């Protein structure tokens, strides 16, 4: 009877997962042991990995064989700490090797599968002739790009470091921000082909157990072939995957991620992806920038209000133009109507065609700008913006005023601090323009009501998407479309169902501090 999207755990493909488990168990039973002879061992490894060209096998007198994959291991460590040690060493029992190697992560294993998957992760396998155990020495190294400022979420004030594609680097960045033993880090593996590592992070003392369980459940229930980016994961574990609106935040800023964790949210990092997932996220939070916390509160509030009005402007300005000029001339005052009709006097199309044409051109420019290399992208922007714009007006295809309106709404849609949400705003404009062309203000209102209903129906990890406005949580309004000074915003948002609602006990506010 109630909203379906409020269900906390969607059951997704449980049966297939069980089926896969059975299969892997069978496999393990048939070929899991490690042969005692070196030659058979190397052959087994080669068979398991289908004779890769980068597999390196090296024999060390008298009984040792080491196997690893080139470029996955750190060459310096390999020669300094493994090969050197092994040459010196006379005792060749795996147990002793394990205890004597000067490397932090050394394990023993007697299962071939485990050894192979460890090798694919950058582990050196050390096999002794005559033993069915093998030493796994982890000296993996990953090629990753250095830390760079976040490109899509740049900020004037605040930390200038962004996530990169390495999971371990990203987790270490977060640990730098939150030096807390309560910071929980759970690891998952997803993707039957890719075996991508995923980390779920939350602060035990703050995050709601129920939400953690739900999210864990959703990740465990997934069966995917490959997972190449976190955005795909976020779409799969969203409450409503069919909605155009993202229900989880994708961010490349560690500070934004940590802010979420500190508010009781949960974070997911996917290996190989520079965007991290933060959830639950309410609609309004997509329009808040991390920078708002760094600026003084009146300025931050002003910027937030500006951004929210920009969203409305961006979505409704062009449709209003179309509606007014197609159906409701009476609404436009005389003094404004004259320049409007003057500029439209040469245009041969009805307003809806004119508007759609220009919006499409802007979208084309934008898409071209995003695909081209940075340097050419700028040039294309200038060529497109100035040349096409001016020429279109001079050729009499569009009116001057529409160019201003379209440019304004395009500009406004860039102010959204989340790229995913910015895209939604950019796209939902089109159906509204078309409705405005058919039914004028009625069409716009219809679209608005549909959007409003849709947004109310959505939820993010079971908590309402329209929070804190509806259901009304008055205290959270202090940090919503405006931001009150820090002494007033002492509570965590209720939508995260944090264990401790207050960040600290508020003290009486002293406006001015006097020197003693």
């Amino acid at each position, binding site marked *: *009877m109630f*909203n379906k999207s409020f269900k906390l755990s969607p059951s997704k493909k449980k049966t297939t997962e069980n089926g896969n488990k059975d299969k892997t168990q069978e496999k393990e039973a048939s070929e899991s042991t490690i042969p005692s002879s070196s030659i058979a061992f190397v052959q087994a490894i080669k068979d398991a990995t289908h004779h890769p060209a980068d597999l390196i096998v090296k024999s060390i007198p008298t009984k040792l064989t080491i196997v690893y994959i080139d470029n996955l291991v750190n060459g310096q460590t390999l020669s300094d700490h493994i090969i050197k040690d092994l040459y010196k060493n006379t005792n060749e029992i795996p147990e002793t090797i394990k205890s004597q190697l000067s490397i932090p992560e050394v394990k023993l294993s007697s299962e071939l599968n485990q050894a192979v998957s460890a090798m694919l992760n950058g582990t050196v396998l050390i096999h002794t002739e005559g033993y069915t155990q093998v030493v796994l020495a982890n000296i993996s190294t990953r090629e990753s790009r250095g830390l760079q400022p976040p490109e899509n979420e740049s900020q004037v004030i605040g930390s200038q470091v962004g996530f990169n594609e390495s999971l371990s680097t990203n987790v270490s960045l977060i640990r730098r921000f939150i030096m807390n033993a309560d910071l929980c880090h759970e690891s998952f593996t997803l993707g039957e082909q890719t075996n991508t590592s995923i980390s779920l992070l939350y602060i035990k003392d703050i995050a709601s157990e129920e939400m953690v369980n739900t999210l864990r459940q959703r990740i465990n229930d997934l069966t995917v072939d490959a997972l190449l980016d976190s955005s795909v994961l976020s779409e799969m574990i969203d409450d409503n995957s069919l909605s155009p609106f993202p229900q989880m935040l994708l961010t490349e800023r560690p500070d934004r991620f940590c802010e979420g964790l500190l508010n009781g949210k949960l974070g997911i990092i996917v290996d190989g992806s520079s965007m991290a997932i933060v959830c639950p996220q309410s609609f309004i939070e997509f329009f808040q920038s991390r920078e708002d916390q760094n600026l003084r509160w009146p300025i931050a509030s002003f910027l937030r209000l500006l951004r929210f009005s920009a969203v409305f402007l961006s979505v409704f300005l062009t449709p209003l133009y179309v509606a007014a000029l197609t*159906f409701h001339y009476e609404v436009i*005052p005389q003094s404004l109507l004259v320049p409007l009709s003057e500029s439209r006097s040469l245009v041969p199309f009805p307003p809806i065609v004119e508007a759609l044409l220009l919006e499409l051109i802007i979208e084309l420019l934008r898409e071209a700008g995003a695909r081209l290399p940075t340097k050419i992208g700028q040039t294309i922007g200038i060529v497109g913006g100035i040349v096409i714009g001016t020429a279109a007006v001079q050729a009499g295809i569009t009116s001057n005023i529409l160019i201003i309106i379209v440019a304004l709404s395009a500009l406004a849609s860039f102010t959204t601090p989340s790229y995913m949400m910015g895209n939604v705003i950019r796209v939902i404009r089109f159906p509204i323009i078309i409705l405005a062309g058919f039914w004028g*203000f009625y069409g716009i*209102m219809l679209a608005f009501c549909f959007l409003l209903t849709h947004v109310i129906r959505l939820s993010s990890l079971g908590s309402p998407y329209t929070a804190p406005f509806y259901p009304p949580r008055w205290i959270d309004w202090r940090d919503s479309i405006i931001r009150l000074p820090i002494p007033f915003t002492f509570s965590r948002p209720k939508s995260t169902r944090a264990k401790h609602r207050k960040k600290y006990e508020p003290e009486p506010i002293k406006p001015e501090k006097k020197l003693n």
Partner: protein
Amino acid sequence: MKNAIQLNPKDMINAVLLFFVIHTTQVGVGIQGFQRIVYQDAKHDAWISVLLAGLATHIIAFIMIKTLEMYSSDDLYGIHQDVFGKWIGNFLNCIYLIYCIAAFFTILKNYIEVIQTWVFQNVNTWLLTATLLLLIIYAVTGGLRVIVGLSFFSFIFSLWLFPMLIYPLEFTGNSSLFPILESNMAGILKGAQSMTFTIIGFELLNVVYPFVKEKKKVKKHVHLGLLMTTITYLCFMLVSLTYFSEGQLNKTIWATLSLFNIIKFPFIERFEYLAICFWMLLILPNLCLYLWAAYRGVIRMVNISLNKVVWIIAFLTFLSSQVIQTRTEINKFNDYFAHVAFYIVFVYPIFLYAMAVLKKKFSSKKEHV
């Protein structure tokens, strides 16, 4: 009680939200043109009628809550079944259900008429009906949480309409209000009765009540909501009485919209065009709640899913909206509906309360014996 509704705490709403629910279900199409109807009976004392009608809503709401409080968590349909037994109870439920659908239909029809008269003369009725119905179906199938959400946002987003009354204030003269109490009492009372169509909506508390979390706070928020409505109507009535002349008000069907006519901004004229389209947001919670209330009645008698009920009622509404088309027909239907609504909303709760009290006394005696 045997009929008590078992609810998941997640499905329940805060008592604060009742304020918005009550207020937004009352304010809808009625406010667009209630001035003329009341004025015809009460003349320039119409504002007293508005006050009286507001007072009546408070009294009735008080009695309604008393009745509901006797049953810890039950709606009107369950109370009917408990007080009158299964057969008569279900018969009464049917009547209430039909009343809800009729209210739904009337609101929809009136709004479409306003749109056709003011904004789009040439757009087909069926097209407007179909689009609105689709929107409502989408909202109602989301459940009470979504409907109450719409009420809330409808209130917040329409707050800006209130200050718009300042524009016509410039052209008002309060001399037309005097002398006070010139019309006789009967006229004023009759005017108050004419407010029925405009002021109903709060009776849906009967159905929403079991879904409220803090039952103790219900009273406060319901009465606040009613007060807010009365103040709104009073303001609109006072401004209209002083703005229009006597003859004008008698002829103006949609006085509120005509009031908005005067509003001018540097970039917008003929403000009522915007306002009428914006009114969709105001009637949306109205429509959704009536439809939802009808659904609650249906599931008391038949085991059926929300989606089915909503689609069936929407389809029936769509068909019947093709029958009633002209202004006179709509007016007639409004009058009939207002008549029936007066008895269902203002008279019946008193009777039901009396019956419930009697039944309780009767059954407690039985238990003692």
